[in-house]
């Protein structure tokens, strides 16, 4: 008991230390800069008797005008017959300072101080050139005053006093104090995390209000930190995934504030780069992937009729790599020097001096995520290959299991390429290898190849599980089996194979081999075939069934619309000529948000509403669910549909601002673009907040939801045979009323036992069944 507590404390201290160290090191001038501590060589406390002043500054400056300013002070340690003399240090946050004579010296354009020659003055003259933009400028002046040298007895150093003066100066147009977007983001993350921690404590309190003390809390917490149970790890994945979905959403909102009006400077270019980098990385790797793993962890063993995953401790390992990786990736946010390379991290920028130091940490965190995904892939493939219930052949697996199977095959065969690329970038940045050093002959295209060899299968990895969820939801809601099960499986497998030979379409404009460009153009067009098969199968499933409109059904229908639209816009890109025009424009942004939000996230929402009663044993409110769907669906389309138009007008992605004009000029957008952008921002905020309806729904359901029956929707795969929520060690209610592990007995049983020509050929390679012959090991 005590050792567990100790372990938890050690872990918390270590995590805190890891968070504190980067922030302490990363302040631009170090902590002990002169602005904060004053002239600390001359005593610790400022003195009121010294009165500093700056003359020559206007009330508000004009753009780029140069002002002559005089810095002076009065008073100080008074002693008969002596004149006070001393030195100064002036810092201006914006604009540039310059010196006029030898009494002052320039440290950099923001800082000046006295020289040896100016050490016995009471005033100094300087010039300051105002910045060219509207901003508030801070001046901080430090002066120190000493007794004059007339005092024979060491007067120059005795009785030394100092004081400081701070002035803020406005521009021609009055501006409000800027909010640092990183502070906003940091504060929101901390607030969210604190709320999460309170929720955690509250959940523990609700469990047993009588036993609410540390001695009970520590083992409860330790159990969650050390668990290898697939259901608990699934829940942990969901907590992590939803938390980072929120964080990524906050970043998206800050980006949208910046883009709401043309020429905005809420975010500087540098900050904007970090925001879209972290938005992409967070959403793909820290939100979508954990949520997929959450669904898979919860549902795969239940759907297969297995007790747990094949490798439970490896499963815990896969999960715990992710939060620590997230800490590394986010060190940049807390230090203000986050990765600014885009989620693609293209070389050579990502290995150049210009890229922020946080890029190293971004690569380090991603390496851990690669390790996590590899372990996940091994674990799920093994589970699905070996732990299917007796009677369940490959072709009896539920479609959600199939989608996870194909997704994991793609993931763990492609992610080593990304991992190797990341290790190359990490080593380049850390120990100075030369993989992407152009001067030494390094090839930046290699990174693009390695990245997209992984990156394209990766985008299918995040969409396929949604296909699986939609197949389950639509079949259950239509009250019939899914139309064309076999073609669905072959379509999934086809997508999985094609994914590896299409990645070149991300690199049409990169100067890649023309032959490869042509090949990937053709293969990319091929992707539409299996995807189209799936869409038409879903439509046919509904056509032959009788639809029950539940919240998850609505999300599935919404998915069909938005994903089809996203898929159609995707068909513009395989054509090299079209792609060259649309590349890096908002048309691309619109396309991938249509498939990733309208596809993946809508699928997740459908899955959450579908399986929530099974996982928690409580029903969600249908009214709130429908409200969530309606607001989110409408605002989502209002958010992303206009982006197609902006893209065709020529608005480029990854640029921190844009300008509109009435004239036809290169690189400018028509006047309407400003209005559309504001419309997008407003819709974005509505979409962001509409998702809190679901969070609210979850909280209400947990606190006072109705108890859920074992099979609330009339589903017939194995997960509905357990109780809601399933017991700690999963057991299923069998036909004879007892509890145990199930066997699949379905109408198509002969399919499993009578192999076709392909499987009979494979059968020769397989291990004999136990009943056919004794197997010795």
């Amino acid at each position, binding site marked *: 008991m005590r050792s567990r507590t100790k372990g938890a404390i050690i872990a918390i201290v270590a995590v805190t230390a890891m968070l504190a160290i980067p922030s302490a090191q990363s302040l631009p001038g170090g902590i002990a800069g002169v602005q904060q501590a004053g002239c600390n060589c001359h005593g610790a406390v400022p003195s009121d008797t010294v009165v500093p002043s700056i003359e020559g500054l206007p009330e508000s400056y004009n753009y780029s005008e140069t002002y002559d300013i005089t810095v002076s002070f009065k008073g100080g340690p008074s002693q008969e017959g002596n004149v006070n003399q001393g030195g100064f240090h002036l810092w201006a946050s914006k604009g540039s300072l310059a010196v006029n004579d030898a009494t002052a010296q320039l440290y950099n354009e923001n800082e000046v101080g006295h020289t040896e020659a100016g050490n016995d003055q009471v005033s100094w003259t300087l010039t300051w050139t105002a910045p060219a933009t509207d901003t508030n400028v801070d001046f901080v002046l430090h002066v120190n005053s000493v007794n004059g040298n007339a005092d024979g007895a060491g007067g120059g150093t005795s009785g030394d006093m100092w004081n400081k003066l701070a002035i803020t100066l406005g521009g021609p147009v009055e501006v409000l104090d800027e909010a640092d977007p990183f502070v906003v983001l940091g504060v929101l993350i901390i607030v969210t995390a604190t709320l999460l921690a309170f929720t955690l404590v509250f959940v523990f309190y609700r469990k047993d209000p009588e036993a609410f003390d540390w001695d009970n809390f520590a083992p409860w917490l330790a159990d969650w930190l050390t668990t290898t149970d697939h259901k608990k790890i699934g829940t942990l994945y969901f907590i992590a995934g939803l938390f980072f979905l929120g964080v990524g959403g906050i970043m998206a909102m800050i980006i949208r504030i910046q883009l709401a009006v043309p020429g905005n400077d809420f975010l500087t270019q540098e900050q904007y780069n970090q925001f879209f980098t972290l938005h992409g990385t967070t959403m793909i790797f820290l939100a979508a992937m954990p949520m997929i793993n959450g669904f898979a962890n919860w549902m795969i063993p239940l759907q297969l009729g297995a007790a747990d995953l094949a490798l439970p401790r490896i499963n815990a390992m896969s999960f715990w790599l992710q939060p620590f990786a997230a800490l590394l990736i986010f060190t940049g946010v807390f230090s203000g020097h986050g990765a600014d390379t885009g989620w693609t991290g293209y070389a050579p920028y990502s290995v150049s001096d210009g890229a922020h130091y946080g890029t190293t940490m971004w690569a380090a965190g991603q390496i851990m995520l690669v390790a996590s995904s590899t372990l996940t892939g091994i674990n799920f493939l093994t589970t699905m290959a070996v732990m299917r219930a007796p009677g369940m052949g490959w072709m009896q697996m539920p479609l959600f299991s199939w989608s996870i199977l194909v997704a994991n095959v793609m993931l763990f*065969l*492609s992610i080593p*390429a990304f991992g190797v690329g990341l290790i190359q970038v990490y080593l380049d940045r850390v120990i100075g290898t030369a993989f992407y050093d*152009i001067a030494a002959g390094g*090839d*930046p*295209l*290699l990174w693009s*190849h*390695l990245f997209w*060899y992984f990156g394209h299968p990766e985008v299918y990895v995040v969409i396929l599980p949604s296909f699986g969820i939609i197949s389950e939801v639509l079949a259950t809601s239509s009250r019939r089996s899914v139309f064309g099960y076999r073609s669905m499986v072959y379509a999934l497998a086809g997508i999985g*194979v094609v994914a*590896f*030979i299409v*990645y*070149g379409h991300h690199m049409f404009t990169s*100067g*890649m*081999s023309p*032959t*490869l460009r042509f090949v990937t153009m053709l293969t990319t067009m091929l992707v539409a075939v299996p995807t189209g098969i799936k869409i038409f199968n879903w439509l046919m499933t509904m056509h032959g069934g009788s639809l029950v409109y539940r919240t998850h059904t609505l999300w599935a229908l919404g998915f069909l619309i938005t994903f089809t639209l996203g898929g159609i816009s995707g068909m513009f890109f395989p054509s090299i000529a079209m792609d060259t025009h649309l590349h890096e424009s908002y048309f691309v942004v619109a396309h991938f948000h249509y498939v990733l939000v309208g596809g993946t996230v809508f699928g997740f929402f459908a899955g959450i509403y579908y399986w929530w009663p099974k996982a928690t044993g409580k029903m969600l409110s249908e009214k709130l669910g429908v409200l969530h769907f309606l607001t989110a669906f409408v605002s989502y389309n209002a958010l992303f549909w206009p982006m197609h138009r902006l893209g065709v007008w020529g608005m480029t992605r990854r640029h921190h601002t844009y300008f509109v004009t009435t004239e036809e000029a*290169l690189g400018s957008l028509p006047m309407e673009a400003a209005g559309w952008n504001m419309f997008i921002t407003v819709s974005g905020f509505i979409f962001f907040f509409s998702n809190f309806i679901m969070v609210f729904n979850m909280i209400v359901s947990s606190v006072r939801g109705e108890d859920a029956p074992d099979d609330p929707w009339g589903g017939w795969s194995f997960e509905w045979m357990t109780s809601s929520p399933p017991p700690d060690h999963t057991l299923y209610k069998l036909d004879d009323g007892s509890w145990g592990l199930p066997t699949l007995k379905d109408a198509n049983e002969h399919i499993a036992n009578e192999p076709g020509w392909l499987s009979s050929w*494979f059968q*020769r*390679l*397989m*291990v*004999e069944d136990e009943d056919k012959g004794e*197997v010795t090991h």
Partner: protein
Amino acid sequence: MAEKTVFGMDLYWLNFYGLMILTLIEVLAVGANLDPVAESLGTEEKVITLWILTIIAIPKFIMIAAIFMHLYGDEDSGILTMTALFPAFFILIMVLFVGLTHPEAASSLPDWCRPGTYGL
């Protein structure tokens, strides 16, 4: 499997001897002066060496995989061989697309699509 014999010799030992001999040939092939052979075939010594090394690497590979890794002779060997060969397609794609595509693409870009040239 462990007790299988070929020609009265233990399979593991036989495999071990075979591997040692093949490796010895490899090292000798690199050390030996193959210039006369290369000249008679009208090519460079390096090419000859590479061919010898590649040809020897294949049986070594198969010997380790089949016998030491039990991909031959066990009752589960068939399906596990299929498992081991599963990534072959993806390896081929990576070698073709990443390893062998136009390595000088970046440096041989035409001038008009290099950064800084926007003469529209």
